[in-house]
């Protein structure tokens, strides 16, 4: 029997449920009044946007808090909690379990969408009232869709009667610090792309697209892109150390689902720059803004509908898939029809010369779009074949690696050169002089790295390294020139741009080097036996039993030495979580600038031996370090003063 005096506390899930319903009402008001007001010229209706947006955030936050309390209090009368938590689950993971499965991750999604909406409402005072009203209205429409989705198909507050005595526990794969913060970051990016989308629709509705519009849209786009970049990197890092086999990218549909919006978003950032500076590429910018958010929705559909995930993952539900598909069709169909019939992009009065920054950015847009389409095609092709009754096949990493390199290699070469081209027309001689030093540094770098550190590993590897070093050197040219007092001080957005490009080069270098010179060995290793990999001796000294809060583990003690001198000791674990009884591999990693030493336990082979996977991964950290630098570049670019100015101020970068 429930104690009646518990009163309010026992109603926590219902309070959450009601909050969601109230948030839906406010989302409806947010969609109707500002849009109708902008159409009819009614200022008071337009002004309703801000309070509605803030109110919606308040109620969604309340619902989220109620779900959090249910998890922290072990309220197993809530079905979602009973399915994804456990009495022994540490508090941190009980909180992270909120977004550990479908229903709760949607609440998180909506919380982030509401936060972005509220941020737009608060930070858009300098915008024309009609544009602001339309942007908020469109965000309200999207919120209606997601709140309906939660309330109709994915209610996290459903009660379980009778309440469970204990929960079924969170998926052990998700009991990891990186994965606890990965979804929020990724969603910040995913959902943040709704803001440029809303700006694009507002421009289409208003029939006006100009350079000021691009200036207002840019910081929001960069912010979303920044989160997406770091979120994807974090996911890749997690896969590297948690899945236990040291890969860092698998071209898995779920990964692609986050990567496609990133590619489109990256293209969008660049066309926005052209639209802001030169008033060109307006139509492309609008289409990319629509596509980037569309790909976010598509990713949600793919992950949530079960169309592409393994048939063994029953987190999927056809009713949910159908809802998102209809939502996707309405949102994207509406947006694209609007795009087709409202020709708003101002006719450019000015053109640009063949050798100019515009040309470079045009090539950039084409190549990034091509990469997006090729990845999209590879992700959906198996699906289309199945739909046409042509059998079930899957397109694996070989396809993706090939079709991704094709546009990316030329792109990297263009990036380095394009950064230093001037708008409109470039003085070819001056341009060449600027590029001389970076080109020399890149070529020298490849020769030194090949000769001194790694050895020759094929033409393609050489070209890849050259591309990475070239982008780094070109990106650092201006900052270095400034430090040596031979050039002007770059503005913040220029700094940000250069830093982000430098990050791209660092990631590229990491990918190329680790792909070419990474060493992987799977071996049977008896206790006390030595294994030599890349000059390091790995000795499995002993296996010991370790007890965690909610798991038991066999832990290997692996001594690593080089030329007889001890380097480090690694502790790879094989964990079995008590409730779900699933074995998890926790790799032992010695991370370093030069390389990672990676040991993962496989299976016990008899009494005194284990199968062991040993890897030496040169420069693997560069992959994620580069992504962090890219994100930092984005942050720096957003902080540029001119985005906070009411009136346009002319050129810096």
């Amino acid at each position, binding site marked *: 029997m429930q104690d009646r005096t518990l009163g309010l506390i026992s109603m926590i899930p219902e309070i959450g449920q009601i909050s969601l319903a109230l948030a839906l009402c406010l989302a409806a008001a947010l969609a109707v009044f500002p849009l109708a007001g902008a159409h009819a010229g009614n200022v008071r209706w337009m002004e309703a946007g801000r309070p509605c947006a803030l109110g919606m955030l308040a109620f969604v936050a309340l619902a989220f808090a109620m779900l959090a309390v249910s998890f922290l209090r072990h309220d197993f009368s809530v079905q979602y909690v009973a399915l994804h938590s456990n009495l022994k689950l540490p508090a941190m993971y009980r909180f992270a379990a909120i977004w550990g499965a479908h229903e709760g991750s949607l609440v998180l999604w909506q919380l982030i969408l509401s936060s972005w909406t509220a941020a737009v409402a608060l930070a858009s005072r300098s915008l024309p009232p009609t544009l602001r009203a339309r942007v908020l209205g469109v965000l309200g429409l999207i919120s209606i869709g997601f709140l309906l989705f939660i309330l109709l198909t994915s209610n996290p507050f459903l009660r379980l009667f009778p309440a469970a005595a204990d929960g079924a526990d969170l998926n052990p794969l998700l009991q990891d610090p990186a994965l606890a913060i990965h979804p929020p970051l990724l969603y910040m990016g995913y959902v943040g792309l709704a803001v440029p989308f809303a700006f694009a629709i507002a421009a289409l509705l208003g029939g006006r697209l100009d350079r000021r519009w691009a200036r207002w849209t840019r910081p929001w786009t960069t912010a979303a892109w920044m989160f997406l970049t770091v979120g994807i990197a974090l996911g890749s890092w997690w896969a590297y150390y948690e899945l236990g086999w040291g890969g860092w990218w698998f071209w898995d549909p779920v990964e692609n689902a986050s990567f496609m919006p990133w590619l489109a978003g990256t293209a969008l950032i660049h066309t926005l720059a052209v639209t802001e500076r030169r008033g060109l590429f307006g139509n492309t910018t609008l289409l990319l803004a629509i596509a980037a958010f569309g790909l976010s929705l598509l990713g949600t559909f793919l992950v949530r509908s079960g169309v592409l995930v393994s048939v063994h993952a029953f987190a999927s539900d056809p009713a949910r898939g159908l809802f998102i598909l209809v939502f996707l069709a309405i949102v*994207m169909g509406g947006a694209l029809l609007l795009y087709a019939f409202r020709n708003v992009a101002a006719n450019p009065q000015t053109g640009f010369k063949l050798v100019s920054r515009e040309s470079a950015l045009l090539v950039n847009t084409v190549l990034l779009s091509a990469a997006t389409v090729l990845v999209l095609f590879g992700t959906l092709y198996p699906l289309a074949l199945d739909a046409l009754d042509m059998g079930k096949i899957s397109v694996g990493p070989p396809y993706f690696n090939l079709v991704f390199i094709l546009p990316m290699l030329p792109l990297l070469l263009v990036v380095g050169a394009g950064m230093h081209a001037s708008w409109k027309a470039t003085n070819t001689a001056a341009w060449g002089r600027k590029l001389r030093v970076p080109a020399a540094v890149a070529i020298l770098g490849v020769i030194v790295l090949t000769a001194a550190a790694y050895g020759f590993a094929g033409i393609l590897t050489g070209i890849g390294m050259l591309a990475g070093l070239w982008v780094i050197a070109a990106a650092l040219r201006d900052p270095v020139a400034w430090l040596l007092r031979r050039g002007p001080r770059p503005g913040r957005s220029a700094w940000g741009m250069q830093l982000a490009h430098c990050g791209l080069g660092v990631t590229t270098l990491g990918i190329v080097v680790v792909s070419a010179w990474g060493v992987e060995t799977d071996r049977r290793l008896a206790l006390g036996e030595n294994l030599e990999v890349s000059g390091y001796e790995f000795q499995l000294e002993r296996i010991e039993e370790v007890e965690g809060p909610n798991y038991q583990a066999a832990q290997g003690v692996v001594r690593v030495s080089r030329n007889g001198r001890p380097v480090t000791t690694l502790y790879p674990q094989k964990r079995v979580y008590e409730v779900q009884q699933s074995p998890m591999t926790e790799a032992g990693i010695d991370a370093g600038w030069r390389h990672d030493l990676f040991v993962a336990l496989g299976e016990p082979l008899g009494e005194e031996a284990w199968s062991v996977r040993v890897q030496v991964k040169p420069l693997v950290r560069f992959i994620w370090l580069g992504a962090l630098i890219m994100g930092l570049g984005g942050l720096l670019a957003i902080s540029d003063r001119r985005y906070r100015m009411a009136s346009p101020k002319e050129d810096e970068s």
Partner: protein
Amino acid sequence: MSSGRRRVRWILLLPCAALAVMVYFFGVSLGRDPGLVPSPLIGRAAPEFSLPELLAPGSVFSLQDVEEGPWMLNIWASWCSGCIVEHEFLMALGRAGAPLYGLNWKDAPADAREWLQLRGNPYRAIAVDANGRAGIDWGVYGAPETFLIDAKGIVRYRHVGPLDEAVFSQAFLPVLEGGAQ
């Protein structure tokens, strides 16, 4: 002049057309979702199988060994997390004497036996379909799934995913009780 303008519009409609094609394919794929389509087996005779019995090494379990009357076949495996979710409920069914049989699908028998030892065995008999061959005949997409076969040996219903009280009392119970009379 006007024709040039129209051409521009057609180009702008291309993304919309691409979206329509994509949504069409998604719609078709969704229709193929194992949960949405009723099994083609429904209304037909249950597919024959003759497989080793999990807990009685050396003996064989086939359709002839099923007792008279309606019965249920639960597809499960020790690697399947959905099976853990439904297991408590299956145990309750087993205790109540429900005619529940198991098909251990694509699993290692040793793991399966250990799994049952840990959680209890709700089944009257369990067929071992280690390579999933019988699963193909039954049109199994994944585990867990539960089939309902009536007294005449006709497949009447198939549930995909963990079985629970709600689904059981709505879809399974009427047939099971009807057959008992």
